[in-house]
């Protein structure tokens, strides 16, 4: 990925999002980058949401500065991954923000003005490819999805459909229950979704 070669960062992840912030993961350079994206998907909070909402870069130069970071759950998760700084840049098409690229490194500290400019230019340059890959991810067979390339996270949405029947609630509520379960068990939404899909977990058996 060009970001890693040209900038003082350790990893990058690119994803495309819909208005509700549901991602299509396009690429991740390493496990930490993939996990940072998954964390935000699981928690429904983090710099990516703010970046997509505002269309502006969200720069977190010190992840360990718990008081200065507006996403408490994400902050805990990110610092436990030994991440020092996270820089999230919007992918824009015309006036529309279609996704974000998330850069991370162990060392805290801001990007210089020049580095930020380079990162912004790179983000603009990869937007077309990112959108193209997202379309592929949406239409291709589910067998191509893996933990490292979760694509549109089909298993999470399938599990959401099962849970909404199990509890007779809306899809939005079902997804929230899935997120809450993952959070309370200290695991990922993906892992809970797999338990549901493989019939190890039925939400109608859980106490309210």
């Amino acid at each position, binding site marked *: 990925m060009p970001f890693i070669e040209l900038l003082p960062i350790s990893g990058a992840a690119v994803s495309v999002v819909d208005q509700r912030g549901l991602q299509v993961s396009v690429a991740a350079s390493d496990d930490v980058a993939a996990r940072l994206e998954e964390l935000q998907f699981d928690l429904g909070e983090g710099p990516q949401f703010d970046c997509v909402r505002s*269309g502006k870069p969200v720069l977190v130069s010190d992840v360990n500065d718990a008081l200065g970071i507006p996403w408490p759950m994400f902050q805990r998760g990110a610092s436990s991954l030994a991440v020092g700084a996270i820089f999230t840049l919007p992918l824009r098409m015309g006036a*529309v923000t279609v996704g974000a690229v998330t850069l991370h490194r162990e060392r805290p500290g801001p990007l210089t003005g020049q580095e930020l400019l380079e990162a912004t230019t790179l983000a603009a340059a990869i937007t077309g490819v990112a959108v193209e890959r997202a379309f592929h991810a949406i239409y291709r067979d589910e067998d191509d999805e893996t933990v490292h390339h979760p694509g549109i996270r089909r298993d999470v949405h399938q599990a959401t459909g099962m849970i909404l029947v199990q509890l007779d609630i809306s899809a939005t509520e079902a997804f929230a229950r899935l997120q809450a379960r993952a959070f309370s068990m200290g695991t990922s939404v993906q892992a809970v979704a797999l338990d549901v899909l493989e019939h190890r977990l039925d939400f109608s058996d859980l106490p309210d």
Partner: protein
Amino acid sequence: MIETTREAQLSAAFAKIAKTLTTDFDLVDLLQTLAEECAAILDVDAAGIMLVDSTGELQLIVSTSEEASLVEVMALNAGSGPCVDCFTTGEPVTVGDIANSGGRWPEFAQESARTGYKSFHATPLRLRNRVIGVLNLFGTEVGALNDQDIAVAQTLSDVSAIGLLQEPNIADTMIIARQLQQAINARILIEQAKGVVAQLTKVPMTDAFSLLRAYAREHDMTLKAASQAAIDRDVTATALDELRAKAEGSDAQ
């Protein structure tokens, strides 16, 4: 009294549009605001905005409702309706009674009748001397917009068009962005519906998809519509079981 309310509404609309033009400018926001304000202030029931893309086709960018009926009427309108006349002449087009519009736009009239829209007004979106799109207003009652309403629609459109100055290929990029959003939404909907079907029938996920598709065919629906019905719980386990029995019956033969 009515005049004052009207004036207040108008200045509020201008303020809203001006705000989207200055703070965190976002074109989709701006156009959505324009459509919604027009639908709220003017005597119309639905509004949609089309912009011309680089191939010269009019493309639907925003509408006050994503209902299939409105989207379909708008699409037809872009091909062979009064919207095209407005776009090519650069002049507003008012159709007070679509059903009695003298057979000028037969397909548009037919689709409008089917979906319940009875009157229509098109306002050109003009940028300098170019027409770059059309604001479409639909009413469910017969009757032309009065001159004052027409002037309001034009003024709001002219103000909004300023926002289009900065992006020459805006329609193309926005169409891709919009298609991407729709593709993501449709895919998520289908995956959720597969989950619903799998839970209701206890079939494996791969069979759930075939069953969902069979249900869509049986009911002459799109896969997306069938998926929405499944998520809304309008698809019963019994209906699915019957479909499954039918499929197994035909396999056995």
